[in-house]
């Protein structure tokens, strides 16, 4: 299994390694916000690492985190300006969360977990896998919440229902893994 496919399946950032919980729980409330976040993550996460990989090499090892965070902040600011130019003026909370992608786990994790000898192919495999894994993992969760919300269930937008749906999803995954002979959910904690 390649790094790209691993981050879509066994290390999915929505269902398996929750690196994007704030965005998953907030953005799955309405179609427009869900599409906005899915597109933003899909575009910005690989872009940040595509640029940052080369910038990092010019910094001493202990200062590399600065280059990753600054590259991410510049990319998010440009994304926000593009959205405004396209006539998409988000609410303050949506805007704060789009900007917060610069420091979110899904964006910074590939850099934090990287080694000094990491290749560009490896970094892009991890970043691309996280981006695709986010979109594929987020879509069913957002769809269920939006359907519940449209169906008149007034608490569908709440954090509690988001967590309940995530728990339900993890139970289904655990049951499937047990059926397929994979590791137990207890082992994931270790």
């Amino acid at each position, binding site marked *: 299994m390649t790094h790209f496919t691993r981050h879509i399946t066994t290390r999915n950032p929505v269902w398996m390694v*929750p*690196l*994007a*919980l*704030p965005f998953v*729980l*907030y953005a799955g409330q309405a179609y427009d916000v869900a599409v906005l976040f899915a597109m933003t993550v899909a575009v910005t996460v690989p872009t940040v690492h595509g640029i940052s990989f080369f910038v990092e090499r010019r910094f001493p090892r*202990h*200062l590399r*985190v*600065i280059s990753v*965070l*600054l590259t*991410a*902040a*510049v990319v*998010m*600011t440009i994304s*926000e*300006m593009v959205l405004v130019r396209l006539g998409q003026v988000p609410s*303050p*909370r949506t805007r*704060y*969360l789009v*900007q*917060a992608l*610069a*420091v*979110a*786990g899904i964006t*910074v*994790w590939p850099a*934090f977990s990287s080694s000094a000898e990491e290749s560009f192919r490896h970094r892009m495999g991890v970043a691309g896998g996280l981006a695709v894994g986010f979109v594929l993992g987020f879509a069913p969760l957002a769809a269920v919440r939006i359907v519940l919300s449209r169906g008149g269930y007034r*608490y569908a937008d*709440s*954090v*509690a*229902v*988001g*967590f*309940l749906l*995530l*728990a339900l999803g*993890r*139970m289904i995954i*655990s*049951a499937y893994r*047990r059926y397929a002979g994979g590791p*137990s*959910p*207890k082992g*994931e*904690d270790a």
Partner: protein
Amino acid sequence: MSTIGLIMTVALTQNVVLVHYLGIYPLSAVVRSPRRAFVMSLATTAALVWVALMHWFVYRFVLLPLDVTVLASISLTTVIALSLVVALRIGSILFPFHRRQLRQGAPAALVNVTVFVVTMALVEEVPTLTHVLVGALAAGIGLMLALVPIAAVRLELRHRRIPWILQGDVSVYLAAAMMALAIQQIDGLLHQFFIPLY
């Protein structure tokens, strides 16, 4: 908004975890034990107050006068990144035998959505520095109010015989959902008295 109103809003009605979910990203690792949740909440509260203080000065004395508030997220991220480097450097001098824990804990406490969004909202929406700092402190208390009970529930569940399907992250999510449901009821009661900050 009064100081009491701000504290109630940020700590309860807009609780960073249970209402807005702006939690720190290694949630399962942070809530492994109540002690760890408490220490991480304290570290994040300190990070919140420090970053809010620094960003307030940059925002009020550089970005607003030059009319470049569009660069707010870049300046805030710079503050967070420099704070992380300084915290790691000072921490490794003060606690030379805990470098590994520092390298794991400092990024989790400083580089997270809670610190970013709360600071951004407070600096943009709240007029005075005192209120910004009080708001940051209240958000940290809100984080603690959410994380420590979730960690306690998780610890209790680890010592009980529960079905295999509820073990692991599922128990964390269910504990968080129960807490969020409880705070949603309190939020409903308080909402008519305190206007949401964002």
